[in-house]
């Protein structure tokens, strides 16, 4: 059973969202479950800072030895920051998916999509594994 912190929100695409409560800027990454399923991450392509995205847009990709997955923005808004450290060292996604492996920050515009609670996300992943 992989780690699913209670204080975060989640998407069906195995991303986590932090900071939703203050309603301004959220931080996004992929879950420990997703990182384990991918295996060693070798490349992370992140969106351009300043770009405007809709909730659900594909904004980047994560490549591992065996596969590639798209990264989606769980919320609409402007990309205000990306984690250059994870672009330079993609293994941070595996070693610390909820911390140093964060991917980008979005200034939220409008209402966020429906996100999952930790409990709901745990239900989703137990069904898949």
């Amino acid at each position, binding site marked *: 059973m992989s780690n699913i912190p209670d204080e975060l929100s989640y998407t069906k695409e195995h991303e986590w969202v932090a900071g939703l409560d203050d309603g301004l800027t959220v931080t996004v990454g992929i879950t420990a479950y997703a990182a384990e399923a991918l*295996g*060693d991450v070798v*490349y992370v392509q992140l969106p351009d800072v300043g770009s405007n995205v809709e909730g659900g847009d594909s904004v980047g*990709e994560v490549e591992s030895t*065996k596969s590639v997955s798209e990264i989606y923005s769980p919320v609409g808004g402007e990309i205000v920051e990306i984690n250059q450290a994870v672009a330079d060292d993609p293994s941070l996604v595996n070693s610390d998916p909820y911390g140093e492996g964060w991917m980008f920050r979005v200034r939220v515009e409008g209402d966020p999509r429906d996100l999952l609670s930790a409990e709901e996300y745990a239900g989703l992943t137990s069904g898949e594994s």
Partner: protein
Amino acid sequence: MSRPTPLRDVHESLGATLTDFAGWLMPLRYGSESAEHNAVRQAAGLFDLSHMGEIFLTGPQAGQALDYALVGHLSALTPGRARYTMIVNGQGGVLDDLIVYRLGDEEFMVVANASNYEKVGNELKERAKAYNVVVDDRSDQYALIAVQGPRSQEILATLTGADLDGLKYYAGLPSVVDGRQALIARTGYTGEDGFELFVANEDAAPLWHALMAAGEPYGIKPAGLSSRDTLRLEAGMPLYGNELSVELTPFDAGLGRVVKFDKPGDFVGRSALEAVKDDPPRRRLVGLVARGRRVPRHGYPVTKDGAVVGEVTSGAPSQTLGKPIAMAYVDTGVEEGLAVDIRGSQEPMDLVELPFYRRKK
């Protein structure tokens, strides 16, 4: 429902990520696949290959039967030695690539890929009908454990009295390892020195534990199919389903040297292959090294100036080169200005001759 190997419990106790591969439940990786890859390049790795098929041919005409059934000249093989060869259909299309071991004057073992061994067994039975030979698919009785990497011989030597110094590359020796009957073969699919141990199913788990214990001081790691694939890719070794298929002849794959036209008698595919052996190949199998960091993968188009000039057969990030690499069929004569269409963007690639990696002797 995937079939487990005799080592399934061992894999689960090691926390392996298991995956379906050709109908078998196999370890994909135990931890970091990069670390497993590097362990094989620098020390040793231990693989469960029990999904491979073992088909025995026994009888006075076993060699002649294989000469007819396969493209190689197996009756000329010295007992104790092995050959890389192929089985093709009547049109010369590759049904599987094989390693054939001659165990004795009248006994051969054909090792086939997991995805193909039932087909290969049936074809061999059919093709051997006119010969005095018994074809017996014993895949269900044998487990296969590979120890691969530069420290393999030192590790194996702690468990067997067999003459490993005298065991050449592509040779097999029936012996005893850790008190168990095993066929020790000096073969592999990693580009490193190493051994493949064919043992009875019930001996697989104890032998695995013995090899792990013996290898611990040398840095051995259990290694899954993910690292096996990147290791063989760096070594430029073909994988059936990727570089080889029934749509391709051995000549298409650049492996025409395995077809032995000078052997006596007819063989399945002979006339079809003789008709194409001198044709200039439309495409050839080459290596591609990415200039960027995005990874070319199986099925992606190879392009030049926007036109499709080939197709990627296998691709992965290479630990050894530190860059993404791929094998691809590319139109003959096209060597410069290549790209791979990676999900809509043309990523520049340099063409190189295979293999990407060759071990230092």
